[in-house]
Structures are given as C-alpha cells and as structure tokens.
C-alpha cells in the first residue's frame, strides 16, 4: 500500500515535470491521473512493488554514468584504431541477484557499459550469460562484475 502510494507520487512528479507546470491544479490532475493509471494496470496483478526502488536507482545513476563514460573511451580506442585488441566471448556469470528487479537492473547495467552485453538469464535465474569484448581472463571478468556492479547494486537495492 505504501509502495503504491509512493509510485503514485512519483508518477505525479513525472507528470508535473513533463508538463512543466507546478500549479496546484496540475498536481491534483497528475495525481488523479497516476492513480487512475495505477488502478488500470494493477487490476488482476497481485504485485505492487513497481516503484519501491526508484529513489535508490536515481542515486545509482551518477555512479553508472561515470562507468559508462570510462568504458566508452576504451571501446572507442579499439574502434578507431585499425587493429583489434579485443578477445570477445560469451561468459556465464553466476548470479547473487534474486528478484526480477535485481536481475533486470544488473543485466541492463552490464549491457549499458561498453564492451559487455547481457545476452540472457537462465530459466532457473542462477546465471547470466554475458557477451564481453575483453575476456582475457574469464575468472577475472566474472569477479569484476560480481564485485563491481552486482555488489554495489545489491547494496543499494537491499
């Protein structure tokens, strides 16, 4: 219930930001609208934890942007220079992340960083298959992900 209210407020804020009008009436309208939308989509679906983790996510964004920028440079170098330095491959990364939210977020973050791409999650959710450009050492690569993104992410999320 609380999370739902939070989602409602968040959506209202998005609305206000989109429309760019902070008038009270617009707040009210946005609120009514978000309530309506949440009502529409949550019927027939028991879970209501959509936006529970949203604020944490926002704070994570800045860390992520840095990573993104850094890795981009690395790839750029490989792209621009004539010779390829990469050693690509698909690596199986065991997962500590459990919930849909955690897994998805992790996978997406990995994808967003240059050189890595989350291909798929096993049906039993135990492993994530990642395509990477630089897998000179498989174990090191896995460790990098688990220690870096996953650990930080789970810290924030849990």
């Amino acid at each position, binding site marked *: 219930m609380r999370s739902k209210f939070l989602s409602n407020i968040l959506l209202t804020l998005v609305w206000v930001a989109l*429309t*760019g009008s902070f008038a009270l009436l617009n707040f009210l309208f946005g609120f009514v609208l978000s309530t309506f939308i949440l009502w529409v989509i949550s019927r027939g679906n028991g879970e209501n934890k959509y936006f529970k983790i949203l604020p944490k996510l926002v704070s994570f964004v800045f860390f992520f942007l840095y990573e993104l920028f850094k890795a981009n440079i690395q*790839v750029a170098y490989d*792209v621009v220079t004539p010779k390829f330095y990469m050693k*690509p*491959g698909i690596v199986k990364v065991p997962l500590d992340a459990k919930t849909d939210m955690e897994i998805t977020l992790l996978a997406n973050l990995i994808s967003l960083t240059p050189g890595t791409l*989350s291909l798929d999650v*096993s049906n*039993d959710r135990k492993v994530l298959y990642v395509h990477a450009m630089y897998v000179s050492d498989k174990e090191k690569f896995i460790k990098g992900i688990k220690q870096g993104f996953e650990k930080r992410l789970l810290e924030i999320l849990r």
Partner: protein
Amino acid sequence: MSEIIIGTLATLGTLFVLLAAVGVIRMPDTYLRISVTTKAATLGIGLILGAAAVYFSDISITSRVLAIILFILLTAPVGAHLIGRASYFIGVKLWKKSVIDDLEGKYKKTTHELRSEDLDEEKEN
C-alpha cells in the same frame, strides 16, 4: 558560457554517435556490433539532448529531455538483450577470434528454455 557547455555537450555527443556508427561498420561480428554500439549511441544521444536542455533552459523542456534519456536508458539494454539472444537463436556465429562461448548448447532447441548447466539432450529423450 552556456554556449560553450552546449557546444561541448553537442560535440561529445556527436562524436559518440559517430563512434557508434564507425563501430557498427568495423566490428567483426553481430554480438560485438550490438555490444559496442548500443551504449555509444545512448551516451551520445544523452549528451546531445543535454545540450538541447541547456540551450532551451526551460523546466518543461529539461524534464522532457530527461524523460527521453530515461527512456533510452530503460529500453536500449533490453533491446540489446532481446536482439542478442535472438541472434543466438537464429545461429549467428561468433567472431572467429572469440575466446569462449559458455552459451553453447544451453538453449533447448524446441522451447528456447535456457539452462544454467550444460544440457544433455540425450538424457532428455
């Protein structure tokens, strides 16, 4: 001042987009192309849009720009994931210099069920 910010953001953004384009041309296999380009472009577009936000410096436009960036950040990796696994299904080969393929043999052909361990087809039957 703001002109410089705008110029820098736009230039960086444009360069990243160009980088993505070059990457798409140059990368030797499909997975690498997906891998390289999705984010370069995302970053590039984010920067360019940022330039626009600074240029117009209007709350509603800025929030719209943020919305677009948010949206791209939300969708681009999901798209890459989807199209990446689809390539694997249809048998797009890894670059010949690839060092490892942990995914090999993990998909069950008929249902596309993905195992975490090696799949033994014979045992199934």
